[in-house]
């Protein structure tokens, strides 16, 4: 962590452990660089007859090239910018399924997958099967294969659970889907920027990601990365800056799935944050965060009355830990951590209700700690001490 960030955090006296919701702070100078560049090229990309518009469009094109390389995707034109991962997942699901299709997902999924599926089922468009996770918080790829039906069109898997922090076996799932000719959509909301997400390696047909979590970009920007062979219908139509005479929306990628003025400021921020991440090494950062997570986990487990839900075992985990204190509402624990100790966490159901249903925490939720690049060992130690105090006071 840079000296500037350390000073900033000391000044604010806040320990931020809600990086799975959004990362904070952003890398040093990112926001200023973002604003400065936007100030120089902030025209409507590809929609003006002047160099600044062309510059803006070229910047976006280069951002697509950068993201394609980052995700191991063969075609930059298949990198589609969206508002966030929820937007990406909706775009993918609604653009891929047809009436009568069957979809397979898991009980680890976020509402950004569950709600589109429940909506389409209620509209009698699709049926779906949700595959359970085991005691280690991991889905069995063979259980997904066993759920295939003649009309199975799509498999969706959350790469890293936003409640348990467990990494799912997407490589095996991808192999199974490829062998059966079934499209495979990976929700990379928590994984992109934390661990490698290589479309080729996991045989994904599409990867949804968001810019503001472990990619350390601003909120309001995300993306959907597509395999060139994936046929996907557009679900939004409008101005693209090309083929304006045509009454029908263009078939050319990426515009086929984009309409309206792009979020240039967000794309600039995402591109700059990607540069930052790659220059600092994603693997090294992840290792550092995992060490902090292990320190937090071992510290909390020494406290009487703490129940851990995130299974142990670093090989299948991310820098996230979910717990409860016996007899306390999770939201009260979070309120005390915030109000009395300046520690920011997230309590509740984390928009993943079925995980909590299976954990038995539907009524009270749970407290999630999610570590980021700028957390320190001192902060983790203070957090452990705070939780010990809260648990002791309550017991």
């Amino acid at each position: 962590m840079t000296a500037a960030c350390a000073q900033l955090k000391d000044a604010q006296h806040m320990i931020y452990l809600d990086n799975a919701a959004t990362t904070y702070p952003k890398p040093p100078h990112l926001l200023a660089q973002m604003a400065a560049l936007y100030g120089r090229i902030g025209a409507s990309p590809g929609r003006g007859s002047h160099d600044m518009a062309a510059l803006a469009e070229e910047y976006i094109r280069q951002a697509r090239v950068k993201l394609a390389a980052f995700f191991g995707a063969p075609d930059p034109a298949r990198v589609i910018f969206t508002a966030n991962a929820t937007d990406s997942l909706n775009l993918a699901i609604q653009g891929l399924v047809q009436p009568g299709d069957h979809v397979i997902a898991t009980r680890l999924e976020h509402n950004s997958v569950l709600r589109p599926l429940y909506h389409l089922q209620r509209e009698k468009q699709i049926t779906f099967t949700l595959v359970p996770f085991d005691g280690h918080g991991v889905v069995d790829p063979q259980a997904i294969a066993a759920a295939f039906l003649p009309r199975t069109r799509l498999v969706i898997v959350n790469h890293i659970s936003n409640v348990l922090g467990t990494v799912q076996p997407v490589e095996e799932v991808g192999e199974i889907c490829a062998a059966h000719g079934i499209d495979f959509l990976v929700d990379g909301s928590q994984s992109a920027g934390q661990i490698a997400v290589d479309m080729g390696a996991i045989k994904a047909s599409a990867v949804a990601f968001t810019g503001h979590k472990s990619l350390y970009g601003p909120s309001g920007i995300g993306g959907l990365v597509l395999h060139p062979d994936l046929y996907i219908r557009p679900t939004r139509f409008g101005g693209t800056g090309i083929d304006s005479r045509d009454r029908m929306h263009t078939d050319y990628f990426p515009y086929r799935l984009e309409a309206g003025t792009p979020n240039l400021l967000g794309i600039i921020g995402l591109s700059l944050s990607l540069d930052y991440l790659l220059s600092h090494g994603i693997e090294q950062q992840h290792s550092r965060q995992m060490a902090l997570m292990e320190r937090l986990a071992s510290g909390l487990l020494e406290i009487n009355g703490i129940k851990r839900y995130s299974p142990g075992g670093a090989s299948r985990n991310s820098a996230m830990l979910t717990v409860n204190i016996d007899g306390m509402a999770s939201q009260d624990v979070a309120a005390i951590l915030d109000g009395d100790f300046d520690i920011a966490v997230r309590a509740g159901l984390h928009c993943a209700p079925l995980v909590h249903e299976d954990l038995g925490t539907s009524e009270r939720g749970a407290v999630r700690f999610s570590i980021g690049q700028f957390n320190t060992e001192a902060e983790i130690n203070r957090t452990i001490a705070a939780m010990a105090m809260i648990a002791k006071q309550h017991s």
Partner: protein
Amino acid sequence: MSRFDQGRDRQLRWIAGRQIYLDWENFLWDSDDWSEAVALALARESGLETLSPTHWAVIHFLRDFYSYHGRAPMNKEIKQGTGLNLMELERLFPQGIKAGAKRLAGLPNPKACL
């Protein structure tokens, strides 16, 4: 049927001699139905036979804040307004801060996260 599939309905109950709507977690459906008698009745249900001056001070702070600002106080505002830290507040009400203090004060059930 999972909780995810169920709707969340209000329930009509007798509280302090009146029929009042409460939600699925026994929060007042309409904050205007609150009275000290209702607060005392809800407190007795949660195991508090009486409400001390400290209880009432917290409850009235929460109600006054909500009435003035149109929202519940944030964590640090609660500390400043009550003079209690949140650990003390959580211990003061058998059901804690949200289901204890805020519910007895008749604040709306916060929709965030649950």
